[in-house]
């Protein structure tokens, strides 16, 4: 059975969520791998949501907001525009492919764009494979983890 990515989508209420609705009412097909969460603005997106999603089983996180200059709250999407690159840098430094996090601008009228963004992102995550976070949780059975391989080899 091939890998079905689990993707978390965070969509802003005013543009992207409406854009997603448009794709839906127009019966545009796109992969069902994304679970969507609606926020009022991408400025609400705390990097902690992204990290929490990845540790909770998401293979990818897609954030969609209003185009720069069109934010309903004027500056919210700019904040997101700055947080996401820094979060990607953190992911890279933590050994997680930063392509698993993507930020896209989708307006209320861009149903087709929403369809293509989600499709493309799903396929990219499929190609990257499942995100397996080794030694995330404490394992009382094997507390040492992958410990002292050199030690074992040298003995």
């Amino acid at each position, binding site marked *: 059975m091939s890998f079905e990515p689990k993707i978390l989508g965070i969509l802003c209420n005013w543009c992207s969520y409406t854009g997603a609705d448009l794709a839906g009412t127009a019966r545009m097909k796109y992969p069902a791998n994304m679970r969507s969460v609606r926020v009022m603005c991408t400025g609400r997106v705390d*990097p*902690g949501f992204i990290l929490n999603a990845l*540790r909770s089983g998401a293979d990818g996180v897609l954030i969609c907001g209003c185009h720069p200059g069109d934010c309903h709250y004027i500056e919210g999407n700019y904040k997101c525009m*700055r947080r996401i*690159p820094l979060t990607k*840098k953190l992911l890279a430094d933590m050994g997680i492919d930063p392509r698993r996090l993507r930020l896209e601008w989708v307006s209320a009228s861009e149903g087709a764009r929403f369809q293509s963004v989600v499709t493309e992102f799903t396929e990219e995550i499929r190609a990257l494979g499942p995100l397996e976070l080794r030694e995330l949780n404490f394992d009382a059975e094997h*507390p040492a983890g*992958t410990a002292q391989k*050199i030690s074992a080899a*040298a003995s």
Partner: protein
Amino acid sequence: MAKPKLAIYWAAACGGCDIAILDIEAKILDVADFFDVVFWPCAMDFKYADVEAMEDKSITLTLFNGAIRSDENFHIAKLLRQKSVVLCAFGSCAADGCIPALANLFTLDSILDYVYLKAPSLDNPGKIIPQLRTKVPEGEITIPQLWNTVRTLGQVVDVDYIIPGCPPQSDQIAEVVGAVIDILKNGKPLPPKGTVLGATDKSCCDECPRERNIKKITKFIRPYEIIADPNLCLLEQGIVCLGPATRSGCGAKCVKASMPCRGCYGKPINVRDQGAKMISALASVIDSTDPGEIDKIIATIADPVGTFYRFTLADSFLRRAQV
């Protein structure tokens, strides 16, 4: 009437928490007066076997400092949990992982490889790496297994209270000790389980005396690049300071000494991941709306993971790097 029993133990630690306890100065005599110290390897010669022989729940209070990164640390953590009524994660190592948890950016193998095979001062032609069991002519001797991932105390046993800080400031410790003695002497109720003691409910910025204005940063700088203005917020001057994402209680001593906060008191109240909050805070002050320019400004932040998670990597969402 028998005195309540107290245990103080250090796992993967530096000893600073034990020194901080002793820095409560004359108040240590109140502690000695009120409690019967039954286990404190740094100061007294009780052995592990003595703890094993104790009745379950016979130790009233255990202050456990140090992170968990070996079988020995884990064994004693479980033992002390079993023998103690109240178990406190004392200090940043036990609460959040602290500096030892920076090892989670590497594998244990890479550490062993450098320390015993690659360090420039080594003379190790036999490529000897310490073994868990070594046969000697007289028999066999052992050392404990080190772990690949450093854990907090709360990740391996059930913890009642947390006292954050690297180390917890002595005046805070003195207050906590006083409160504990008061509770035990006068039969007062214990605080709710999970309470953070010895710290307050705001962020470090709240205790910082520097002047704050709207921040617009176009370039982050390292602390040695300028002679910082002594009266102005350090972050405003472009120096990355973790004050916004750090719990208050320490008195902001580092910032008062003109050095940026590095977050040793851990995450603030209602925050789950200190580094994530710091990303949010820094992103808020970057002065640009152009993606290319934003990338350039972000590139001026040195070592984001090691700075935002300097003290809390083991406690963070992701716990360790995938290497």
